């Protein structure tokens, strides 16, 4: 079997898991930064000279990797409807970006 044929045979689930998990990680990053700015949830710093950003970003990366691992395990052998996942991944990513913008924090702080 050639490389081309083998890649065609893989179900699209693991690709959609990677895309959706990236959206979840992005949204987590935005939400964590918003909650910190609003004083609702402060993640402790992992490296004091750099401050709280080290804790916030590490937590977001952990959420992203765990979400990716779970989705990959559940979807890797499945073919899923890609259009819907496209919308979900983009909405999550854009939502995360918006929540990570300081002018948005002032609406909640």
């Amino acid at each position, binding site marked *: 079997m050639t490389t081309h044929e083998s*890649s*065609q045979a893989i179900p699209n689930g693991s690709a959609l898991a990677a895309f959706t998990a990236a959206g979840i990680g992005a949204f987590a990053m935005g939400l964590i930064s918003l909650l910190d700015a609003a004083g609702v949830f402060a993640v402790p710093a992992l490296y004091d000279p750099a401050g709280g950003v080290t804790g916030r970003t590490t937590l977001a990366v952990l959420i992203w990797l765990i979400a990716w691992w779970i989705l990959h395990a559940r979807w890797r052998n499945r073919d899923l409807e890609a259009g819907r996942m496209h919308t979900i991944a983009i909405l999550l990513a854009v939502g995360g970006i918006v929540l990570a*913008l300081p002018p948005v924090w002032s609406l909640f702080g």
Partner: protein
Amino acid sequence: MSHYDLLFSSRSIWTMLHGIFFGGGSLLGVAAALFALIALRAAPPGDAAAAQSRLIAWLLIGTTLLVWAAVIVGTYVTFPPYRATPPEGVIDLSAYPRSLIRSDPRSAWLHSFAMESKEHIPWIAAMLVTGVSFVATRYRARLLTDDRLRRIAVSLLALAFVLIAGVSFLGVLINKVAPLE
């Protein structure tokens, strides 16, 4: 301090590595991958598509490494000296960029908006590029021939490109007003 010391102090070298090599390299890599995914979408299945998709996968792996290097160096190496608190009584704030920026109401936004955005948004770009890089590596030629997957990859890379370009521009502005020397 001589010009040589200003250019090649460890702080300025790390800032240049972060902004120009890692950040600039990420921007070039994402732009090249975006172009390839759009330009090669009609690639007919076969050896040529396999070779093209292999190059795209390697390009994205390299770009992913550059983006992560940029965010990790930015957060753990160049950010600490930026946010260092000046000792009591210090008048010359040039060695303390955050305090220097906040001391003038005209430049305070460079911290409250620009740097605060730069703390988190590059990490989002890194996750998006990594997701696309994984798919390019695992799916190879199918990323070019499967229109649905290719569209999602292009969307996420385009988003990452805008984010990296935006935070890079903000970084240039911060470094013009309060460079890490």
